[in-house]
């Protein structure tokens, strides 16, 4: 577990266009906090190599579900399987991207990105080489020696993303990663994320409350109902990915999907 070689020796993941296998399987997961039922018998599948979004009104338990999959929270009932293994805590095949970035304020970009590898006792030169690669990958080349407080919110989240990529996990769990980022940065970030999904062939599980973001990014959208959170609908928008971002956002299938989800969710607003 301590070398990069063993981390990369994960089962090969099928091509994005081929029929994918299931990377994350959630089976009848329930969770209650004192006085609040957060999740009730939630079951869902996340296809390998694809981006699945958990979408729902605030307080629907989507972050709780993501953290249960991450092994950070114990479910009261039900099981989670990641790549065929039952989850009973955090594991090296999963990496988490935090809503508030969760960077080490006293460490520069390189150390933050390499931190997951540092915890696995990967030698310094080796982990910094890996970090340098992913820093370039998320577009932060030239900022290696900066500290988090010297970066904008969007750049900090890129550091968080690079840290998650650097541990070479097969499944990336992202908890509203762009919610603390301004709109221009958010769009640029979404493009980069789509490129990474295509290129890294990892499974992404993405929590958001933005319908547009979910439709634009996702291969599969899982709509959760309000508390107690239950799976309400699974939508697979089939966007023509060959088009440019602006064209995609004008496509009828994009607009119709956004509208359909909005019609479903608006009852919670009214």
């Amino acid at each position: 577990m301590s070398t990069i070689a063993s981390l990369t020796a994960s089962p090969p993941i099928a091509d994005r266009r081929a029929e994918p296998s299931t990377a994350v399987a959630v089976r009848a997961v329930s969770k209650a906090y004192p006085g609040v039922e957060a999740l009730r018998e939630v079951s869902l599948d996340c296809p390998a190599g694809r981006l699945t979004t958990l979408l729902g009104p605030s307080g629907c338990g989507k972050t709780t579900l993501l953290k249960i999959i991450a092994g950070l929270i114990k479910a009261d009932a039900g099981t989670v399987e990641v790549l065929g293994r039952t989850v009973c805590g955090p594991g090296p095949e999963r990496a988490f991207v935090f809503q508030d970035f969760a960077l080490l304020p006293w460490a520069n970009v390189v150390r933050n990105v390499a931190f997951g590898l540092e915890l696995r006792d990967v030698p310094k030169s080796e982990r910094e080489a890996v970090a340098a690669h992913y820093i370039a990958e998320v577009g932060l080349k030239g900022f290696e020696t900066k500290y988090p407080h010297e970066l904008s919110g969007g750049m900090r989240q890129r550091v968080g993303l690079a840290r998650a990529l650097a541990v070479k996990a097969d499944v990336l769990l992202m908890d509203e990663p762009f919610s603390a980022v301004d709109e221009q940065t958010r769009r640029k970030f979404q493009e980069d994320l789509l490129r990474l999904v295509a290129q890294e062939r990892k499974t992404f599980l993405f929590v958001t409350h933005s319908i547009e973001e979910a439709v634009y990014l996702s291969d599969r959208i899982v709509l959760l109902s309000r508390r107690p959170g239950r799976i309400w609908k699974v939508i697979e928008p089939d966007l023509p990915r060959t088009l440019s971002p602006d064209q995609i956002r004008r496509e009828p299938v994009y607009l119709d999907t956004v509208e359909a989800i909005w019609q479903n969710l608006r009852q919670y607003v009214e």
Partner: protein
Amino acid sequence: MDILGYRLPASASLLLWAALWELVGRLGLTILVPPLSGVVVRLAEIVPTETFQDALLITARTFAIGVAIAIAVGVPAGIAMGRSAIVDRLLLPWVSLFVSAPLSALVPVTMVLFGFGETTVVVTVVLFAIWIIILDARAGTRNISPSLVEMAASYGAGRWQAFAKIYLWAALPEILAGIRLGLVRAVKGVIIGQLLVSVIGFGYLFEIYSSNFLMEHMWALLLVLFAAAFTLDATLGRLEKRFDYYSAVRG
């Protein structure tokens, strides 16, 4: 402060008080307050003596050992309390009790336990310094953002790694504030310990000076101690400021 367009440094008021002291001393109102100039002359006289050097050495040594123990035990204890509800419940009542207790009253007890020597003084220093260090380390640890704790867990940090690589650093501003307060209390501890044991270090000198009514000597010694405590505090305050840059942004 500006007077007649001149900018006065903050230390200017010290000069005023020094002048007042000199005046009261020269008026000869009481034998207890000799003029400041006399005290300063005496200061220059006694500092180079071997008795003073020995006392300084013993004081510095017991102070350093006591502070080192207080930090080495207090910081991990505080972090453990901040991270674990069980440890917290077990220790917090004692820590809260001791942090405000009149600890001087305990020194005679430690004297019975550890004898009339340096050990008692070291124990006194630890007793004075450790509680505030524990409390501040605990407060700092409880302030660590929950997502940093989750980050440590999700990237597979073990207990020791989480402590050494995250908790210690995340709580550093509070830990340093605690150590600074602890050091000021440790100065009290080392002097009170020595005074009560009164056969070693400055305690011994105080004993000699006061029983012989050597007021100039007494004041000279006090000036040294006050200056030492103040310098220590100011140095640590500056050190703390260097860590402000991230304590402000750690959210």
